């Protein structure tokens, strides 16, 4: 089981967009995919067709923390992926995790391990995170096999990236399954010389972690997001090009992780 944590402490870099489209892309190649929405803002859940306010708190990860088996909380979506949706009450998740043994560092990993023997085992789990350091990020990196950071060529993003490198290194000390960090250039567009300077800094400093696949700015991605669909469901414009990019990404990740 591959567990991808899509994370960066900076907001607005496209974590949810990558999480949803990557999950749909893995489903396209017939892998069994679970997306876990760990952000109390519930954006990924809404994107996958679960309206805000339509579920009880214990139908989210909060239920799993109370002892409900993961398999009973997940639900199918039109994108062909299963989802463990988020609930606004997950704003209290950090405090709840902190009260768990080891501050909840292994809480998510245990829940995922237990799900293996259940009826709906998964090949790929994607964790969509809120832009924050804290107990939720810690439990996600405690369970992940790889962390994916969507980035743009911007100063604040690069600063956040530095912080994430630290966090992944810390998490590797307690989670030997975490292979490392992969940086995904997302909504990537170099306009001025300053963008090129940041791009160069990124390529020099993070050469080993940089994914080959780059997701440029594309109207299809924005339009698909606007109608809350993945690019694989959305039909229109240049969506076939973007679909192909996400399949590239799936292939690259599978190669990196020795899946096929």
């Amino acid at each position, binding site marked *: 089981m591959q567990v991808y944590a899509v994370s960066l402490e900076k907001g607005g870099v496209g974590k949810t967009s990558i999480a949803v489209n990557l999950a749909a892309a893995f489903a396209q190649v*017939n892998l069994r995919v679970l997306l876990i929405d760990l952000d109390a803002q519930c954006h990924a859940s809404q994107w996958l067709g679960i309206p805000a306010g339509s579920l009880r708190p214990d139908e989210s990860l909060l239920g799993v923390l109370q002892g409900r088996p993961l398999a009973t909380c997940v639900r199918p979506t039109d994108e062909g992926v299963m989802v463990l949706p988020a609930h606004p009450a997950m704003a209290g998740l950090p405090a709840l995790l*902190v009260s768990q043994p*080891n501050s909840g560092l292994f809480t998510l990993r245990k829940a995922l391990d237990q799900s293996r023997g259940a009826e709906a085992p998964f090949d790929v789990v994607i964790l969509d995170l809120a832009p924050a350091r804290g107990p939720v990020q*810690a439990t996600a990196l405690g369970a992940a096999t790889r962390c994916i950071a969507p980035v743009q060529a911007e100063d604040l993003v690069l600063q956040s990236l530095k912080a994430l490198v630290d*966090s992944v290194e810390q998490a590797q000390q*307690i*989670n030997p399954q975490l292979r490392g960090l992969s940086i995904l250039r997302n909504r990537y567009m170099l306009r001025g010389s300053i963008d090129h300077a940041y791009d160069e800094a990124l390529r020099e400093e993070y050469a080993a972690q940089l994914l080959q696949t780059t997701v440029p700015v594309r109207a299809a991605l924005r339009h698909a997001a606007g109608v809350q669909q993945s690019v694989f469901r959305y039909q229109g414009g240049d969506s076939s090009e973007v*679909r192909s990019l996400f399949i590239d990404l799936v292939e690259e990740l*599978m190669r990196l992780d020795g899946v096929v």
Partner: protein
Amino acid sequence: MPPSKSQDRLADIRARVARRAEQAAEPPPPSDTAPASPEPAPASEAALAAASAHFLGAAEQLAQGRAVVSLPLRDIAPDERPGMRQPRLLPRPEALIVDGAPAPAYAALVAELLALGQSLKERQIQPIIVYPGGSEARPEGRYHILVGHRRWTAANLVGLAAIDAVVVDPPDEATRVRLQYTENEAREEFSDMERAWTLVQMKRALGDAPWESVEAQFGLSRTRRHELIRLLAFSAEQQQQVALLRLQETQARPLHAGIRNGELSPPQVDLVLQRLAQIAAARAALATQTGGAATTQRRAGIDGPTVARLVARVQRTDPLGAAPASTPRWLPPLREQIMRATTGMRRAAARVEGLNGEDSAILLTDLGALIEGATALMQAMQLVSLDAASPPGALDELAGDDPGDGGAAG
């Protein structure tokens, strides 16, 4: 229609995935040497501690592994023992609401707390952190608040019966000050006056340690610490006012500089603070009416120039406020001139050899005039100080204190 290139590729990947699934379904080849799925080695204590320190905030680290419990509000109270009081401006709930209405001085604060209370009614996101202990002032309190005074106060104001809390061991004084500072530092409504109080508390908690150690505790620069400490020039009541207005040190600078230079008397400072409070109240009222965000928690309505303008006005129009005890305006510049002249004369003493006769004569005349001026000033001062030190009847009173005469008078 022939399949497109991308469809070919998708089919290829799907086939590979299917092959992999078949392989996985086959029983693994027998192996004596390696277990099929090696359990990852448990993380070391040190790695766990490092991870906690990295991912968790100070308060979260303290609450680690402790259950969240729902405690009755009446079982909780702020710690009001000397030295244990939180260095923040947050009056008791009963001082905030008087006869069912917000106390006028705290109207804006009460509005904020009521909003916080409403959101707590809907959902409490973060438990407060408490430690066991009652107090003389509140014997019914079984727990003291370590972090979460505002939430506790807000819960009181909206009449909640219970609050989610984590109970921790009683902290030592320095830990308490550091934690409360860490929790408050990032908050917009934490003011420089409260920072200054924090510094004073930490200094005492560390056994009156030198300022350098206090700065190190909070990662503050020397300059910043100096700036914050200047706010202590205000009297205790004025400090409360400054905290309530959430004036930052730079904004309050014309005021505390005036106090420290002896250019403002306490009544003048009171006048300025009063006027600032009126401005803040008016802006808050306006914001409530228009529903806009005209005031932030920093009270954006009050800035440095406003304070400077009010200070200048009070100095111009309200000289009455200048109490007799305050330093007159002419004194500091005169003293500076005298000190400069004294230093100059000391230096010149080593260099007079080179002076020609004409220059020597001029200098001697100047010095004569200086001595004359100084003597006249000293005489005038002696007259005044004699008057001041011996008001009418003072000598008689002294005599009356003499035990020999006292007995006779009785």
